[in-house]
């Protein structure tokens, strides 16, 4: 059970935060199809940052001394850098779609095509191969929080909650959850959030009340880029052993699906992301899942082909979307470039 919860969270959290990134852009009226591209770019930047830090021996002493506070700081710093560069990358999209009033889907697609190519090109130059990895060690030994890092004995039993939430977890997961909550409140309970959402529904009306639509749309897309960049790095760190390959396994597109399925509402998105993460986890480790702890691995004994389990996450997405998309409510002005002269 502990294993299932932890692995589900590892898959669900990047999805959740990137889906929220989509919400911020779309609620301000910009379709951000480039989530996948920004994630790829963010993952690359974060991994590169860690590599450079390792190469410059900045945190080697901290690692040798098992000073995990410093290492967590390094992780947060890498997340911040990935977010920053993700935001910068997304400026390309906002510039094209706000200032140049270009078609937003085309702009997003262009970024999606550019990011993996650019990232692979850079990785080839930097590392002379197709994967950018940490120069030494692995993500788990550097950044994972375990019982022993918190000062407990290796065999200590922390109870169900302790074992689940404090052992073998990444700080990044919790930071993302907190950010998700804070930003959801920002979107719904603050003046800024209301203004941002109004620009996605009726920008003319918003403009007539003195809200700068262009600025709001820039803000929405930039927050979106930052979150997607960070989400990309968190994905690479927690599930892919801190490696960047110019690929995030379609998580950006899945995040779009999660966003639509979650009806552009943070609460629903969190639920949708967890549902998807759960099936993703079941798909990869069905043979090791023991829910009630009786030593019987039920899913493995059913005798169903592993391919069926691996299809599950995608089938579930299709089915759920088919049933819920009728009720979905798209932000009204999404995808339409704002033109002041138009009524």
């Amino acid at each position, binding site marked *: 059970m502990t294993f299932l919860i932890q692995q589900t969270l590892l898959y669900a959290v990047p999805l959740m935060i990137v889906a929220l990134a989509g919400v911020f852009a779309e609620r301000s009226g910009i379709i951000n199809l480039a989530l996948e591209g920004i994630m790829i770019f963010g993952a690359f930047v974060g991994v590169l940052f860690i*590599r450079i830090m390792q190469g410059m021996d900045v945190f080697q002493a901290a690692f040798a001394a098992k000073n995990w506070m410093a290492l967590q700081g390094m992780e947060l710093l890498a997340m911040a850098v990935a977010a920053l560069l993700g935001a910068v990358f997304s400026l390309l999209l906002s510039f094209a779609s706000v200032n140049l009033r270009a078609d937003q889907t085309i702009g997003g697609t262009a970024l999606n095509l550019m990011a993996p190519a650019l990232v692979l090109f850079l990785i080839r130059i*930097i590392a002379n191969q197709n994967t950018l990895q940490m120069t030494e060690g692995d993500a788990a*030994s550097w950044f*994972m929080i375990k019982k022993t890092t918190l000062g407990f004995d290796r065999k200590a039993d922390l109870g169900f909650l302790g074992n689940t939430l404090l052992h073998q977890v990444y700080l990044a997961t919790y930071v993302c959850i907190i950010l998700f909550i804070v930003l959801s409140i920002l979107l719904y309970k603050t003046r800024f959030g209301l203004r941002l959402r109004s620009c996605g529904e009726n920008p003319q009306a918003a403009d007539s009340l003195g809200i700068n639509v262009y600025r709001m749309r820039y803000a929405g897309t930039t927050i979106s880029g930052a979150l997607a960049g960070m989400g990309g790095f968190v994905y690479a760190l927690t599930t892919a*052993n801190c490696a960047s390959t110019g690929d995030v396994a379609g998580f950006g597109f899945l995040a779009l699906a999660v966003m639509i399925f979650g009806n552009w509402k943070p609460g629903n998105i969190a639920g949708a992301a967890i549902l998807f993460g759960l099936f993703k986890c079941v798909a990869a480790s069905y043979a090791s899942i023991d829910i009630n702890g009786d030593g019987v691995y039920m899913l493995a004994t059913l005798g169903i082909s592993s391919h069926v389990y691996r299809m599950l996450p995608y089938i579930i997405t299709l089915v759920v979307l088919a049933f819920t998309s009728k009720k979905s409510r798209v932000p009204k002005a999404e995808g339409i470039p704002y033109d002041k002269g138009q009524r």
Partner: protein
Amino acid sequence: MNKKLLALLLSGSMMLSLAACGGGAATTPAPEESKAAEPAQSQAAAPVESKAAEPAEKTADDIPDNMTSADGKYQVAFITDVGQLKDKSFNQGTYDGVKLYADANGLSYKYYQPANGDQATDDDRYDAMKAAVEGGAEVVVCAGFMQEAALTKAAGEFADVPFVFIDGYPIGLDNVAGISFQEEQSGYLAGYAVVQEGFEKLGFSGGGGGTNPACCRFGYGFVQGANAAAANLGKTVEMNYSWEYGASFSASPELQTMANGWYTTGTEVIFACGGSMFQSIAAAASANDGFVVGVDVDQSFESDAVVTSAMKGLASAVQWAVAKVYDNTFSEIGGQGTSLGAKDDAVGLPTATWSMENFAVADYEEMFADIAAGKLDIDADYETGLEQDWSNLKLNIQ
């Protein structure tokens, strides 16, 4: 003009890559002892290249992966298998042999990666071989049994160029030397060692989706060794055996999750059999305080979780085969298959770097000598042998 620009870019990227790798403490040692003939030759070449100050024992990592030859021709060419060049395993180990031989003998060398990465087709591989020959290759080293179709075409077309087919077999052409390894012996030793060491729940995660003969032999040997050691100790061990992930020998989040699941449910050590798959499994091992058995080359430098590695002497085999081209004895191996095993000292475990406490080096050496002398015969017929009723082993094939 274009050439100059290209050279500039190449050397620039080389510097960058060197700078990026420079900080890492992880270095790979010289994979195998070099051939006796080498030092003499390298000393002869030394004054010309003004490398006299350097010590004779140069490791493969000291030699850059990209080199620029003066005339734009590259004498020793290497065609990679699927997966990346620096996989810290099969491709890298083979290329190390190319680099070591070329560097010691003052030859130019280059690697060619077939286009389309993991999805490379026979045409992509043929194109890479053609490019190698047209680039002036005097010998082409091809890694991986998947090159067969492309090799048949390329070697037939360029009949005067010798090809070395690593993990290969004779394909009916006199200019192709097939070199294979008796991986089952290496796998056997690894399986025997970990069970003797005291591990009772093992895992095997192989690459190539179960179609790669080398990986199949490794796995089958691992099972036999574990069973033999368990019988010796009078106990029963369990093993998870999977080909599910790593069909293209790459690391993936799914593989990492699967390995996490295995470790969580009690698996103590996993044999990561396939190139970059090691990354995912080592990450899962260090998250769960588990252990890993490496493959092809000594991987103990990559992670503290490595107990030992089931090695095959790729670098030394390549050097041996390429040397035959240059001393005009290639006809001895051309057109034939050479199978290297314990008797040639081409497989085994790295006793200097393993972290075994309960399995003594002397016991290992005794067993190794038995295998080399043919006293202990290890079955290589994985197709019929694997799914039998093992006396002391519970095998869960996934």
